[in-house]
């Protein structure tokens, strides 16, 4: 008989007694009407009988002892039951999962930082920024975005002492007038001293300082007090020079201005303590020009920043009170 899987399944289930009573009746009816189905049933039954008739093997006697020995050996070797292994495994898996999650979070944080660094917009500059003026081709220069800068007002007080008060006073008045700063000056003459409250641009102050530089030797002392970002705190620069004042004022931020002023204060104080000073004090005034101790200047181009000329923001951004007093 040609094999028919569906009939075979039915016949095998019949042989094994796995059919319902109704199905059994149906199979019996089929066999009664189809000799081939009955023949196939006998073939399958013979197969089953052959396998079922195989002798039953008995387990070797030593199985029980071997099992006991194996269990004892495992106990001696410290191998715990799988319950223990499973708990330990679960703990280990949990730790690994937590560590993997932590590593993922860390990685994501690092990636986010990197991406933010790359994609984040440039921070808006709230204060003035230093920048270098370069010669650029016209088109590039036109296309380049202009940096946004907010000039910071300089507030300071310059105290000058001189033995030639009258002459120095006259010189300063003339310099103020020559440089067109008379409008922004509020001079006040007090006993033995003149006070100039100057409100002008950096350029205007630079011109005045250039003039004052020519008579700087007439000052016995020059002290500049610079207001810092910390309210009420000042940096005092002793033995300051006109160039140093210009350099401090020309800084674009309060922080840079304070740093430069502090540097000058430190340098000037150090210079004052150099041995040359003591020698100078011992030598006659007339020979002063023979031995001169150069005022320290900042040499690093990074420490100071020149502002480009003609900046509109410069206007009226300097408030310097100049006090000229007579030496005792």
């Amino acid at each position: 008989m040609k094999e028919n899987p569906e009939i075979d399944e039915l016949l095998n289930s019949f042989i094994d007694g796995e059919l319902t009573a109704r199905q059994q009746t149906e199979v019996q009816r089929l066999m009664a009407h189809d000799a081939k189905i009955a023949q196939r049933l006998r073939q399958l039954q013979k197969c089953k009988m052959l396998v079922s008739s195989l002798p039953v093997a008995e387990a070797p006697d030593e199985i029980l002892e071997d099992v006991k020995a194996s269990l004892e050996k495992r106990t001696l070797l410290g191998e715990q039951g799988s319950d223990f292994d499973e708990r330990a495994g679960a703990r280990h898996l949990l730790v690994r999962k937590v560590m993997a999650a932590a590593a993922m979070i860390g990685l994501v944080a690092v990636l986010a930082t990197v991406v933010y660094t790359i994609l984040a917009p440039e921070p808006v500059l709230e204060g003035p920024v230093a920048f270098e003026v370069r010669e650029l081709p016209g088109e590039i220069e036109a296309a380049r975005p202009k940096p946004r800068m907010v000039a910071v007002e300089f507030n300071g007080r310059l105290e000058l002492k001189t033995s030639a008060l009258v002459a120095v006073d006259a010189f300063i008045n003339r310099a103020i007038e020559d440089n067109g700063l008379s409008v922004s000056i509020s001079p006040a003459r007090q006993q033995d001293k003149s006070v100039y409250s100057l409100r002008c641009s950096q350029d205007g102050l630079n011109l005045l300082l250039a003039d004052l530089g020519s008579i700087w030797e007439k000052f016995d002392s020059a002290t500049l007090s610079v207001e810092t970002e910390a309210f009420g705190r000042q940096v005092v620069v002793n033995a300051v020079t006109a160039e140093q004042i210009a350099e401090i004022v020309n800084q674009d931020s309060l922080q840079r201005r304070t740093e430069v002023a502090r540097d000058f204060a430190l340098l000037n104080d150090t210079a004052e303590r150099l041995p040359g000073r003591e020698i100078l004090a011992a030598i006659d005034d007339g020979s002063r020009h023979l031995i001169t101790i150069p005022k320290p200047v900042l040499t690093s181009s990074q420490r100071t920043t020149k502002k480009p000329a003609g900046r509109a923001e410069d206007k009226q951004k300097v408030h310097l009170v100049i006090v000229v007093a007579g030496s005792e």
Partner: protein
Amino acid sequence: MTEAANMDAYASNRRINIDEVVLVKQCRQGDSAAMERLILRYQNRIYNVILKICADPDDAAELTQETFVKIIENINKFEGRSGFYTWAFRIAVNLTLNYCRRNVKLGFRSLDAEQVQYNSQAKQLLRQFLSDDSSLEPAVVAQNREMCEIAVEALMKLDDAQRAVVVLRDIEGMGYARIAEVLDIKLGTVRSRLSRARSRLRQILEAIL
């Protein structure tokens, strides 16, 4: 439902000898005498099934031992949802089928094993037994060593999954539902796999004879 309740329900619903449930409980409490009784109760049946699937007495003994070690070690995991008997046979059959797969991969056992030359009288007798109109009793087969060897050889030419179903049904006498539980397959799969296995066995035997 608690494990104990599961086991009680199992014992009552399936009418399994209450002794077995008690033995399992005692075994879980570390009673070595109960453990021995469990082993003695099942060792022959498990060994016989394993031997009929793997066909090597030494390997069968080792696999039986391994089966009982696993049973004892994992007895606390046995929740009583299926019978202890089913659970134990599941462990045994899984270990044996893994062993068979491993050996086939390593080339230790070939399905096209060398053809053994059987005595023509045994062949004749077997051919007669298988013929449609024969009324030869199966006991005759069981008493003839060579006929048994032919039958085992044919059995070993089935694939592992088919052989396992045939052994569990025709040698261990399990019902289809229990075979499905032991092998963790569907009832319909048991039905179709067993049918194909018997058809194939018939073909193999005819080829041998």
